Every structure is written in C-alpha cells, then in structure tokens.
C-alpha cells in the first residue's frame, strides 16, 4: 500500500484518478492546486504524485521543478496526467523531471499500469 498525492484543480478529475486506482488499496490525499501540493509534500511523505499541469497560481511544471529542487523529494515518482498531449509539452514536462507523462482522456488500465510500474521502480524516471 502506497501513499499517493493526487493534484488537480478539478475535483471530478481527482475523483476519476482515485476511482481508477481504487482497487489497489492505496492511501490517497488530494491537493486542489500546485501550492497545496508543495505544502503537503513539504510536511509529510508520499510514495507517488499524480499531477495535472494546468492549475491556478502555479502550474504543474513549476511544481515538478520545485520537487526536483528539493533533496528530500528528488526521487519522488511523478506521474503527469494532462490535457496537453502535444510533443512539445511532453518533452518539456519530462525534461523538467516528470517520471511519466499521460494524456487525458486516460483509461483506468493505462493509469493503473503506470502507477504500478512507478511504485515498483520507486525512483523518478527523469530529473
């Protein structure tokens, strides 16, 4: 069982992510903004972050850069789930330090497989 932080400003989207991963018996925490995500991550440990890119205040890219700039969080797996499916966004996101990049709409199987793989690896893919 892992602790997963789901970050998305859309409540429905967070619920969808959790619904897809429900079968795995993980613990879930929610953050409705990039700021909330950074604050939460600074105060307690997580095994994985599922992160949206497009959010108020600071976007997902800034969150990733911040996480990768922190010694304690440098190897935290980050799965980016975003509507921006273009190659440029994918390249920029992975370059910033995301472990994996997935576009919306995603299927439950796809996100489940990614989460399993990232938790097994236990390390960030990039950054």
């Amino acid at each position: 069982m892992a602790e997963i932080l789901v970050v998305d400003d859309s409540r429905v989207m967070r619920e969808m992510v959790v619904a897809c991963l429900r079968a795995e018996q993980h613990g879930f925490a929610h953050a409705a903004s990039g700021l909330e995500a950074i604050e939460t991550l600074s105060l307690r440990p997580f095994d994985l972050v599922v992160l949206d890119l497009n959010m108020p205040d600071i976007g997902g890219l800034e969150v990733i850069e911040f996480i990768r700039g922190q010694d304690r969080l440098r190897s935290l797996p980050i799965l980016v789930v975003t509507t921006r499916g273009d190659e440029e966004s994918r390249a920029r996101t992975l370059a910033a330090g995301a472990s994996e990049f997935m576009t919306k709409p995603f299927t439950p199987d796809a996100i489940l497989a990614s989460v399993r793989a990232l938790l097994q690896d236990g390390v960030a893919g990039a950054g």
Partner: protein
Amino acid sequence: MTGALDVNEFVAGYLVEVEEHLSASTANLLAVEAALRAGESSPRPIRELFRALHTIKGLSAMVGVEPIVDLAHGMETVLRAADRAAGSLSGSSIEVLLRGLRSIEERARALAEGKPVLPAAPELLAALTALDLAAAPSPPVPTIGADPEILAKLGPGERVQLAQGVAGGRRALRVDFTPSPARTAEGVNITTVRERVGKLAEIVKVVPLSVPASDGAPGGIVFALLVLTSAPDEEVARAAAADGVRALTVEPAVPPAVAALAEREPDEPVDREPQLRGVVRVEVARLDDALDKLSALVVTRFRLARAAAELRARGVDTRDLSEILREHDRTLRDLRGAIMRARMISVKELLERVPLVVRGLGRATGKQVRLEIDAGKAELDKAVAERVFPAIVHLLRNAVDHAIEPPAERRRLGKPEEGVVRVSCFERSSNQLELSVADDGRGIDRALVARRAGRPAPESDAALLDLITLPGLSTLDQATKTSGRGLGMDIVRRIAVEQLSGELAVSTSPGAGTTFTLRIPLTLTIVDAFSFLCGDQLFVTPVAGVEEVVEIDAARIIRGPAPGEARGGSMLPAAGEARGGSMLPAAGEARGGTMLPAAGEARGGTMLPAAGEARGGTMLIERRGEVVPLVDLGALFETGASPARRALVVRRHGAPFAFGVTRVIGQQEVVVRPLEDPLVRVPGVSGSTDLGDGRPTLVLDLVTLSGRLSAGRGGRGALVWVAS
C-alpha cells in the same frame, strides 16, 4: 485490469464544474471587453479564461463529450496566444469567444437533459481559428525589482498586472508565508492564507521558495505572495502569518493612458480564484430530498406534541416526555437550519449572469448602458433564486429597452450618453431579501400608461404599478426586438407576488429614472409562522409578513369615511373599482376541509356589509398616531361568531393594514405545501400546512390579501368589514 471507467458516475459533477467555469469565464470575458474599451490589457482574466477552457477540455475528454472538447480547444488556442501576449485580445475576439461559451453551455445543457449533444458548428470553429491575434497590441513589459529567483517565475502578464496595479495607486508587496505542521494543525495553510490575504489584496503570484529547514520552516519551503494592495502593511502581514512585508519596485513601463485608465477602476475585483477547499457540491435534487424528509419530521413533531398534550389532559405525568420533546424541538430546529443553509446560494452567484444579459440588450438596442451591481453578501434558497431570475431579466429588459434613452436623445437632454442600470440587493431581515433594479432613464409616463389601460391617470406609484402590471399592457407602439411583447410587468408581478409571496414596488420620476423593488422571502418551504384562530378555524401566516400583533380595543375602533374618501394615507378605492376575478375561491373549492366562503355569503354574527355599506363607512384602528384599516378575517372567511380581539398588522407599499383574529395561538415553524390545484390557487392563500392533526391548514399571505382588499378586488366580500 479494471475495465472501462464508468463516466456516468461523474457526469453530474462534471456538469457542475463546467457550469462554474462557464460562469466565471463569462464574467472574465466581459471584464476583458471592458478593459479593452478602456485601452487596457487584461492579463489576469485572460489567464483564468485560458485555464477554465483548458480544464473544460480535459474534463470533457474524460467524459467523452467531443463537441465540447473541440470548442474548448479552439478557444483555448486563442486564449493561450493572448496570454503569451501579456493579456491582449483583439476586440473581434470577444464576440466569437462569447459564442463559444454559449455553444459549450448549450451542449452541456443537452447532456444534462439526456438529449443528443450536437457537434461544434464548423463556422464557429473556423471563426476561432481565423481570429487575428496579431492585431492585438502587446503592452510594454515593465521591470520589477525583486529577487532573481522570484523574477524568474514572473510572466509578462503578471508583470503588467503589477504595473497596472501600481499605476492605479496600489502598492506592490511581497509577503512570505512559512508552512509548518503546527500551523497546519491550527488550520493555517497556504490555502487559508490565500483566502485571508485575498480579502485585503489582489494576489498576482505565489512563488514557492526553497529555504534551509529550520524551526520556522521544517519543510524547507516558504511561499512568497506578490500582491497589490491599499491595505496597511501590518494587516497584510497578519493575514499571511508573516512578520512583515517587503515593497516591490515597479518601473513605470506602462503607457500613461493605461495608467490613467487603471485609476478609474480601483474596484477591480480581487483575486477571483474560487476557494473550493472543504466545499462539497451537492445536487439540488438531493437537497430537496433532505428537505422532504425534514418536512415529514416537522409534521411528526406536531403529532408527538399533540399526543403528549392528550396524555397530560388525561392526567398522565408527561414531564420526561416534555423534556424529550423540547430536546427534539431544538435538534429539529438545528437540522432545519443546517439543511436550509445548505440550500442557500449567494445573490452574487445569482447575479453573475446579469452582465451578459445587459451586454446583449445594449448591443441589440444600440444603447450604451453601464451596469452597476451591488450584490451584497445575502444568500437565498436556490429554488427562490431560480424563480426570481426571470423577473430580474424582465426588469433589465424594460430598463434597457424602454427606460434608457438612445444616446442622441440623452445628449439632447443633457444626460451622459451612457445610461446606468443598477442592480442592488440586501437582506432586509433574516427572512426577506430586497432586490432593486434602477435606471436613470426617462421614467414611466403616467398619462400614457393610463391612456393605454383606459383608466384615469394614477396619482401614486402604487396605483401606477397596478396599471403597468395589467396583463398585456404595453406602452410601446411596437413590440421591440428585445422585449418582444411590451412591458411584461404582469409576469414580474406574478413571479414576485404570486409565486414567491413577495412584494413588488415601483418609484419613478419623469426624466430621472425608475426603480423597481422586489421583496422576496429567502426561503419558501419551511417558515416561521403565527398560528391563529378566526372563530374556530385555525390558520397560519408567515411571521416575516407580520409587522406587529396588537390588541383591538373595540371602544377605539373608528368609523372612517366611505371608501374612496379615506383620510390619512389609507386611501381605499370604492368596491366598484374592482377588476375582474374573485379574490377568494367559491365555497367548496378549497381542499382539505378548510372551506372558504363564497364572496358576499358570509354567515355568522359578524356579518359585515360590503364596502360602502358599512354603516356609513370603513373601520379603522389607530396605532401610534397612524390610521390603520381593519378587516375581520373571521368575518371574511365565515368562520364563526367570535369577535376579533387581536389584529395582525401587515404593511404593503408602506401602508399598514390590520387583520382582526379571534386568538393568536403561537409561533412555530411550518412546512408550506403549494396549492397545486389551480382552482384553489388564489391570491391571499399561499399554500397549506399540516400542524400534526393530519388536516390541512391554510397558510394565508396577508400582505397580498391586504392589497386585494385595498384595491377592492374582492367584490362584495371585500368587503366586508372593510372595517377600516
């Protein structure tokens, strides 16, 4: 493997989120348009528009609503370019983007109603693609004095936003918040800090900074909030739980014209980021269900109280039971409060759509209209909000279409070309909301209205209102494109008075403008009510409508002049002025055993003559120097011979009116059930309730009843005691 995600599970939540984003986007787009007219760029609203459309796109893709994905994508592309241009958008873009928002809204509504969702219109998608963003000039990007780490995070839009704020007279500050487990435990976190700071300042950007872990920042982070404010430094620091603030220097790279215009809008709405933490959205149907269950509990409580009273009457010791009942009462009242609060929406939310309505009307009529909204902080039941909104739209239409003069005419009259429509709202009491729509237009032409209605010219605003709310009356020679069917004030009155048991008033001044005022209850279904006896018949009436309960001193009843000759401001027209229709249903029309008399068939000992026959005139009581008309409800409803000993005083159009009753039983909350059968839906009776004995009790709307009696609408029965 989990198989497919059941999106049906999320459709309701999806629709709620889309509606919220559309509503905020419309407001933001109108803000962009206003800024564009003033020569300003709009970095913040455009950023938020972009974000909203992007979120709609992602959500719609998950739910599989491809037409909305297409539309949102087209709009998002336009807005991304505008965002990169530091918040510049060409004027031609606004209309196309508004069409885009409407198209998304139509498709979301179709989805909600289970109808097919039409594909996005190719011409609209083409129009979005064709928008010439290059035409929008990018403002020069100002220089900000701050730490390099912070500067690296500031986009051109945020720099322009800071510069515009400073040019408008506010200070640019940095205030740091350091999160910690202890603060989190106290409920102080970045979200609550944002909320608190957001009340004092416009938050332009929040930058997370890495710092060495310490007692103050065990997590090794600090949030730097860059804000624009006019509030004292100490207050901003206190809101951020910080020791102090730091000033940001902003180089004046903003063109003077922009700076001057920025000063004209000091009330630029502060950070509009919706604060949704801890908020659960619930479908209205679920709240209705909860209310129904609560209603059943309220009725059961009456039955319990009645059973306990019967036991007591038989000599049983019911002290323990009474204590349980009191506790039950308290819990039920708390539960009622909780459910009713959950049903409330802010008036601000209700009025969010108003700017779009006025914009459309202004464009359709070629008039320049400035809209001012003062929504206050009042809240009202969602069901009431939905019913009253069409009335607000009618009043806005009338204001723009009929009242505000065309620019040339205003110029000739020495008025500014731009007309003003002001929508304001405040909570009059814990039960009533006052909402007014005022314009600075030409005022209502009393003589013209009277001519059209075939009546004498009204002398008072109240009499004028009676005329303009006649069904079908129009003061325009031709139906216009916007109003279509003339004034339609009968609809406004029907909504405000008959559907919501509220009140409608008008005040108008030639050449200076007109104000329509709606007074409506905040909630409809469960209300605090007085229960009272008229003879041996029990009635209830909402406490909110009753100004005072007074003793009637029979010796001090004054016999007034014949109707039509009343003094002291309590002018009562003659019964002959009654316009069609019977105020009360004929005997036997009321369901549930509460029989109402046929007009003029009153029995019993308090038989009162019709107005004008009342032994020389009407009956009045005196209250603190004020002459108040009095009608005996028992006589009106033929409910027995007991004389009226007390009176419930109501006020309509500022004029008091007293209803005599035999005995006031008490005050309690009741569940009002609408009278759905059209045969028993009559003015003055707003519904029925069950006081626990299983029999319906009529809920009287005494304010409306007073209006009908004053107007002599009751025919012979009106009667009656117009003991006034």
